[in-house]
Structure formats: structure tokens, C-alpha cells
């Protein structure tokens, strides 16, 4: 399933970039993250609890940041599995300078889900994913504003 969207952040591009690839910021802002451990260069192990429609569960998996072109673009590979099934996906995040020291973030990705969660909640997945991304960016924005 394809997801895409954009978000405008009131902060300069380099500041946004630094936060977006900072594991502490990610762990603090991605909804439901219970642990995030660095296991290699730009590679993390993560445990995350997510509810999609009626299916709520914890997924254990890996996150890798690849093809990093600071401060313009990077890709994120996610792969996790848990009781409700599995999730795999790749996304591209682009940062463009906007007017008045803002940053225009655009993202697009392809997510595959399987197991019980696919049969129960797939049609809600798009909405949930979009909401999580919005929450993530808005949290990052608040962190930046709060210093």
C-alpha cells in the first residue's frame, strides 16, 4: 500500500535534518515506541505498540536509514513482526527549504502488511499511518521549538 504526504515545519532545514535522524528524537516522538537501540551505523532495533482499528499489538523489528544525502533526503526501511502480523516498508523523506526559515517535508512510501492485521485492519492502515506520521512531525517540531 502506498502512503504519501507533506508537512511544513517552522525550522531551518539543517535543524530539522539533525532531529529527524537523531535516535533519541525518534524514540521520543514516534507514537508507541517502547525501545530503540542502535545496533549499527544508522541501524536500530525497535519495539513499538500500535493499534490499527481493532488490532492492537507490539511489533519488534529493525529500522535502517539509508541513502542519506544530508540535509535533503534519506530513505527509511522498516521491518517488524508481532502478534498481529508483520509490517514491512520503505519510505523516502525529502526536505526542501521553504520561505521564512521553514522546511517543507514530503514523504512517500510503500508498506506491506501481513497476517491477522492485514485481514482485519488493512483498510484502516492508510489513515493510521498518516496520523502517526503527522504526530511524529508535530512532536519533532515541538522538540525543536522547545530547544
Amino acid at each position: 500500500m502506498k502512503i504519501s504526504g507533506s508537512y511544513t515545519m517552522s525550522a531551518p532545514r539543517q535543524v530539522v535534518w539533525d532531529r529527524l535522524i537523531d535516535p533519541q528524537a525518534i524514540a521520543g516522538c514516534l507514537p508507541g515506541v517502547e525501545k530503540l537501540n542502535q545496533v549499527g551505523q544508522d541501524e536500530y532495533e525497535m519495539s513499538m505498540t500500535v493499534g490499527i482499528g481493532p488490532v492492537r499489538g507490539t511489533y519488534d523489528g529493525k529500522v535502517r536509514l539509508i541513502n542519506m544525502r544530508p540535509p535533503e533526503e534519506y530513505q527509511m526501511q522498516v521491518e517488524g513482526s508481532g502478534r498481529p502480523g508483520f509490517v514491512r516498508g520503505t519510505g523516502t523523506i525529502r526536505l526542501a527549504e521553504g520561505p521564512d526559515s521553514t522546511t517543507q517535508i514530503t514523504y512517500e512510501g510503500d508498506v506491506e502488511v501481513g497476517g491477522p492485521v492485514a485481514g482485519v485492519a488493512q483498510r484502516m492502515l492508510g489513515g493510521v499511518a498518516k496520523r502517526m506520521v503527522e504526530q511524529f512531525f508535530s512532536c519533532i517540531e515541538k522538540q525543536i521549538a522547545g530547544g
Partner: protein
Amino acid sequence: MAVTKLFGASVKRREDPRLITGRGNFTDHIKLPGTLFMALKRSPHAHARIVRIDTSKARAMPGVVAVYTGQDLVDKLAPVPCAWLVPDSDLKVPTYRALAVDKVRYVGDAVAAVVAENRYIAEDAAEAIEVEYEVLPAVVDQEKATQEGAPQLYDDVPNNIAFHWKLHAGDFDSAWNQAEVKLTRRFINHRLIPSAMEPRGALAYFNPGTGDLTIWCTSQNPHVHRLLLSAVTGIPETRIRVIATDVGGGFGSKIPMYAGEMLASAISRDLGRPIKWFESRRENYVATIHGRDHIQYVDVAATRDGKITGIRVKSYANLGAYLSTASPGVPTWLFGLMLCGAYTIPVVHVDVYGVVTNTTPTDAYRGAGRPEATYLLERVMDLLARELRMDPAEIRRKNFIPKEQFPYTTATGLQYDSGDYEATLDRALELVNYQQLRREQEELRAQGRYLGIGFSTYVEVCGLAPSAAAGAMGFQGGLWESATVRVHPSGKVSVFTGSNPHGQGEETTFAQLVADELGVPIDDVEIVHGDTEMIPFGMGTYGSRSLAVGGTAVIMATRKIKDKATKIAAHLLEVAPEDVAFENGRFFVKGAPDRAKTFQEVAGAAYLAWSMPEGVTPGLEETHFHDPINNTFPFGCHICVVEVDPDTGRVSFRKYVAVDDVGNVVNPMIVDGQVHGGIAQGLAQAVYEFAAYDESGQLLTATMMDYAIPKATMLPRFDVDRTVTPTPVNPMGAKGAGETGTIASTPAVANAIIDALSPLGIDHIDIPLTPERIWRAVQERRG
């Protein structure tokens, strides 16, 4: 003259009080001390190589007794059998393991089994099993699966084609070349999920002391399951008892042999303890068979005055990942033979490709093959009528097999037993007030409203079947039925039938037959079913065969009882047997009706045996094995009237008229119920139900939230009527009514919706005709 008292009466179902007050005897109600519970670890991937299975965490959990992987059972359990080996089709039956070894091939394929002290622990432990998969590309669409470069499910099934079956009757090329009118179409008859109210399950107990396996399970055919369980476990049939007393619906989905029942049996033998396993609803949706799923290409040759001169069909049938028990027979024989329908179509060419894909296996689902043939034909009739600007009722009439021509042999070789197709059409036209409706349609169109009238003039084959025909088709079994009638010393009667009901009401209808034959109160007759230890043998309930085949066996056994009882009565009355008459439960001397013995007195005498006629043995019990001489062919006309809102795609049902001819009817209320339920299921295929997969093979409709089984409010009122054309095939003249509604209704509804949309230039939309599909088609036409 025998007085018929109950044949034809709407006797209330005797099984209902226990079923609706929660006192049924379903498999999950059975409890044995020391039972362990089994849960299955299922694949979340549609196609993947199993790299590694780590069961250590599961094994370490308190309460877990054992964990099995496919490898552990290779020597203990033979593969899941396929029992319909369609001949002359280059059939390949790939190995189907109860627990996958090496590879998984659909989402839901079982890879490990856990047994534990209770179900909670078993389910948790199944989740704790870690399986490492190497995910492979999957293929879901059966047509794409046959194309170059498609993912291959098996090394020994090239292009995923498990068989290519053909039936070429007559010279289609010449019919095509001479045709004044030609029609070419592609139809999709999409996949459905049977969704029986009770999911599948089993309680298996292998007693290590006696070596006996007793299994309670959700079965439409306990003896067939006993035979197959014997074959896969190696336990002799004499040591296996299959019990399926109350079964909560099946629609065909409880015919096959499945992994779950096999595993429960094999693991019980391994551990010497009872094993219970029951599907969750989600497991039911992914791991119990699905139905339909054909892609059909059809060419029709016709004359300008509307006579079909030939039909050619190429069908791709989606078999799913493995060949289920009867799956090769459904899209071939049960489909191809019925492609003449109610019509005098002289030439039929059909080619069916059975294709394996990364989806749940398919098999017989209510109607099984006939709905796919009927939908195709009835859509063709409407398309042709439109092409020729003929009335859809009249083009059907023009092609009907005339009633004088019965018994009628079709181009495909079936002999239709009896029929009067125009009678059902005329009655339905009258009930729906057809001329008035067409005028109303014109008026509404002028106001920008879209009313549609849809027909389905179907014929179906049921009462399956003469065993010799089954054999010729490659079905690995006979299709006769058995019955034992045991009259007790008090004159009360136990009837043991091999037709195992799972909602059909045979405890009532069979008792009606016996009460009539023997002149005893219906309350004195009990019907026993669903236990291989009590019943001689049985082929089971499916294919609308219980009454036509099983009911005939009951009647024949009862008549043997009457013959013997007459001899005993004659002896007691001191006259010759030919001087004795039997009426209303009394044996009396012809011409001297006061000299009589009741049936109960004769039964008592048969057991006392103080004074028996020469050569007559004590007791009063008879068994009959009945093999029918032919199938039966119910028929009818369904008319659906809808209004469609082109702005929203919403369909409102205005009227639904069903005029069926199922021959003589034993219990009209039960037949009405069958017809109502059948229409609900078939109508749902037309507008609601759809088993959807995404491209990677995930079932998207794996709950009742997403798979649209209709509620009562989503259905119209059904106006049900019947004509009666008895069959000569059995003594009751009864044909069978279990599937007519499902077969007839899908095309009637689809035709009505397309008829409504015809002013917009729409002549076909593939089912299910959801508001979205209708809206999209309308938008496309409107630009």
C-alpha cells in the same frame, strides 16, 4: 389405498427446540477429561520458503505439552488427500501436507501445531514459535498464474496448471462460422467464503489401550471422513469412529478432509490423550475452503431470431494453493455438463484450466459449479436479448427445451428427468405483473429513474448421483445412500441414515416419510445420523441429495419392513399374506376389516417370535442401499426487480419472485426455508460478498466486518411459489431444493441491475455489483 398424512405437510422442525435453546450437541460441547488443546501456527506469507522454525520458547512455556512441525509428522501422517481425480485432464496432484514442509503456499498454511493444557496457553505458545521465512513472489490471479514468468508454486506443476479438462460436444467452428449473431465476453465469477455459523473443529481421542480412535468433528459426511482418516493415519476403519451429531451449517465447506482434523487424530495417537481443536472465525476465513473464483471467456453463436446454436467456454478456475478433496470436480463436471442450462443448445465446447495460486484452497460451495454455469448462461441470454432487441423473457422461451421432449438428453450428455420450463416462467411473470412493470419502467425512465427487471430461468443437477456416473467422472467414491429401519418391540421406530444433515431438517422430513409408510405417529419415529458406529455407511449430505437419494433409501428399507410385517400379520390372522391389507398402521384381512393386528402388535410378535411363519426370522429390522438411476433436475424462474440510483450506485430491491419446481415436496416450510437461505446467499454474491486478496496474497476480507454477509435488512421480501413436475427417478417424485436459490438468484439480481442501467449504455459490470462498481461504471459512461 395408503392414506398420505404427512407428505406435503409443513411439520415444524423437530430439531429446532434443542438447537434454538442451546441444547444442541455440537462438537465443541463435547468434553473429555484430560483433554489437551491444539493451536496451529499459520503462515502470514502467501508464498515463502521455511528457513528455520524455532519452537524452543513455545516448548518452555508452562502448560505446553508438545510442539510439532511438518518434519516431525512426515512419517506419521500421509498428505491431505484429493478424492476427485478427473480423468483425461493431465491432472497433477501436488503433495499437500497437513503441516507445511519446506514451503508455505498461502496465508493460513499451517507450519506447526502446539498442544497445551488449555486453549489460552496453546494460542500463546503458537505465537511464541519463531519462523524465519524467505519470502517469495506470490500470485493470486489464476489467469496471471498461467502466464510466462509467473511465480511457480510447485516444481512439478508447470505454469501452475493442475489440469486441463475439456468437453467438446458438436462442431463449434461450424456453428460459429454460420452464426448470424456472435457474442464474445469475459465474465468473472468471484471468490466467496462459505462462512458456516459453526466453524470447523474436532475432538479426537485415540485410546492407547484399545487402539480405537474416536473423533467428534464438524462433518457433512462422517463415513467419508472415517475412510480418509484411516487412509492418512493408517488406523484401520474398524478402529475409527467419527461422530458429527449436530453440525452448524456447511454449504460444502465441511465435505473435505482438512489438516486440523488429521492433526488432532495423529497427535492424539502420539500422546494418548484427547486433543481438541477449534478454528477461530479468522482461521475459518483463511483455512476453510473458499468457493467459486472462475474467469470465463465465452463465445456464443446464435441466429437472428434468437436461437443459440453453439457456445464455447474457456474457464480459468482458481484452485488455491492445494487441491482440496473434491476441488477438481467442481469447475469441470459440475460446471461443464450444465452449460446447456434450460435450453436446446446443440453445441457446447468447454475447456477448463484448473490453476494453483497462493490463495486458500477452493472446493464445493453451495451449488458448486452450477452457479458458475448458470450465471454465465443467464448473462448471455440477457446480452443476446439486448443485441437482438428481444424481450429477455421471450428469448428464454424461444430456447427452452419444450416439455414434450422430456426425458431430454443434452448436448453434454445429461438426461434431464422431467421439466416444464414455460410453466415456471409464466407463473413468475404473472406474480411479478410483468407487462405492468415494463410500463412502469418506461414511465420512471422518463423521470430519470432507473428500474430494472432481471430473469434467471435455471435448471440444476442434484440428487447426486448414480455411482457409475461418479466413477466415470473420476470421483473416488460411490454416490448411493444407505438406510436402516429398526422397529423396536413396542412398535417405535429408529431410522439410521447415512445422509448426515447439518441444517437440512432430515430429523423431521425423514420421519414424515416413515410415519406415512408405517402408519405410526411421527413421535414414534426417531432419526439417527452422524455416527459411523451406528449407521452402516453413508456418503453424506451435499449436492441436494439427501431426500432424493437418502430419503429413497429410507423408503425402500421401510417397504422391506412392511413386507416382512405383512407375512407375520398374515400368520397371526391365519390367512395368506396376499389376503392382508395394510392401512393407517393396521394389518387387516381384505374384506373383513375387523380382523386386524396393529403395527405395534406385529412388531411385538416379531420380537417374541413365539409363533413365526415358516422361513421368517425373528426381529423387525431392514437395511437398504440405494443407488439412484439418474440425477434429478430441478428448475425454475426467478425474477428480481430493483431500482438503481446512478448518482450513488445504491441498489434498492423492489421485488423478488421465485417460482421453483423441485418436484413433489415433503415439507413446504423446510423447502421455503432452503429457498430463502439460498436466495440470500446468491443475491449476496451479486451485490455484497467478495473474498478480496491484495497482490501479495493477503486476504483483505478475513472478518465479518469486511466480508459482507447480508443481514435481514439487506434483503428484499421473497415471494416464493412452486409448480410441481415430479421426477420419475425416485418413488417420492422429489428432486431436491438445497441449492436452487443460490444458483438462480445471482444472475437474476445482476440482470436486474444491468437492465436498470441499460439506458446509460451499460451492458455488463462484473459482480459483485457494489455501489462503488456501479458508480464507477456510470461515471465512465457519463465521461
